[in-house]
């Protein structure tokens, strides 16, 4: 009986890193958007935070696109 520990290990590693990275990125994006919300209430703007937020979301969107390409392939 041969258990493919290497494959299992890489599934574990990849899943862990990708999940944490994606969720982290997304949360940063959301934090950026809520900063804009707060800034808007006080009449200011938060251009940097908003740009960062959209960059984060773009990263997430890229990950989703990659996921779809994996499913289709």
């Amino acid at each position, binding site marked *: 009986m041969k258990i493919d520990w290497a494959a299992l290990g890489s599934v574990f590693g990849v*899943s862990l890193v990708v999940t944490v990275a994606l969720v*982290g990125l997304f949360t940063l994006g959301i934090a950026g958007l809520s900063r804009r919300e707060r800034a808007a209430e006080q009449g200011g703007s938060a251009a940097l935070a908003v740009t960062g937020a959209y960059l984060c979301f773009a990263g997430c969107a890229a990950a989703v696109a990659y996921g779809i390409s994996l499913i289709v392939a």
Partner: protein
Amino acid sequence: MENFSLILAIVVVTALAFDFTNGFHDTANAMATTISTGALKPKVAVAMSAALNLVGAFLSVEVANTISKGLVDETGIRPEVIFAALVGAILWNLLTWLVGLPSSSSHALMGGLIGATIASAGLGAVHGDVLVTKVLIPAIAAPLVAGIAAMLATRLSYRLGRKADGKASEKGYRAGQIASAGLVSLAHGTNDAQKTMGIITLALVAGGAVAPDSDPPVWVILTAGLAIALGTYLGGWRIIRTMGKGLTDLQPQQGFAAQTSAATVILASSHLGFSLSTTHSVSGSVMGAGLGRKGGVVRWSTATRMFVAWGLTLPAAALVGAVAEYVTGLGAWGTALVAVFLVGSSAAIWKISRREVVDHTNVNHHEEPAGVVTTAIAAVAVPPTHAAEDLSATIPAPAGESAPSTATSV
């Protein structure tokens, strides 16, 4: 000629019925967290999942030629064996749906195949080592991998998102959950609809209706996709409730972390060559997300029942599959008897389910259902033992008998 086309027709219809229960059973995987956190209305969620399942069925051209994953010797398999395997899988899917427990449809199918093959060709035709590497190890690994990833992601999300509040974060998490749930649905459509296509094709090859090694005919792809989508749309609300509300209470951040972890694990595992069950991954990630929030609780009694059901899936489906194969072996009337039994017990299970209706209106109300459901749970998952693996040798008999006994009690 006429004889084989009849059994083939039966197999095709049964395979589509299995496909239906598969979609029905697994809606929870994609949509339970989305529904319980309120990101999508229940009906909208299942409709979206159904559409993506249908799309998924057409996406991949890779033929599901490894339905049994080398578990049993596929050469010389007869349509009757496939029929018996499907009967075992369908009954187990319906029974676990009745008690609202998520369990792997693939394991049920593999169990049915193992049982039917043993009854037909003896123990030698089952590859025991494949059973361990492709079934047992993944069943333990999937919830651990997905759970740990979801737990860490949830922690991180709460830490980074302390200042995230208001409309923006609400909308954001909603979009995130919808996207990751969509990915799970799509992956499910490609994987599980393909499985049914593979079975039907295998049966067609076994019956001599199509040439060996041919791709599934278009009508097979179409009907399999439609069956799984219809099942998904009708929604296994009982299982959705267990997964979304029963295991733990999810907030949007947790729902997002759980669903993202599940989607990642499913995609990573199927592309790195260590296939993990969708159901096990999602259940694990939901529990992980529950543990990741400060003050979050996992209801271990529900989780234990679920683990016991996982342990029983394979032996129970195998037992039913074996008995079904034995009876079909008695002749054409045996096959008819099994078909009647399948329809009868399915109807009985559906009838029992009507006593305690769970649908889109009450899917988010979590009260431990009493009465018949509890007794049914008791019949399936007797003691909350830790030796779930050891139980497989002794418990199948009562579990297998509980199907007929509930059938007669109506």
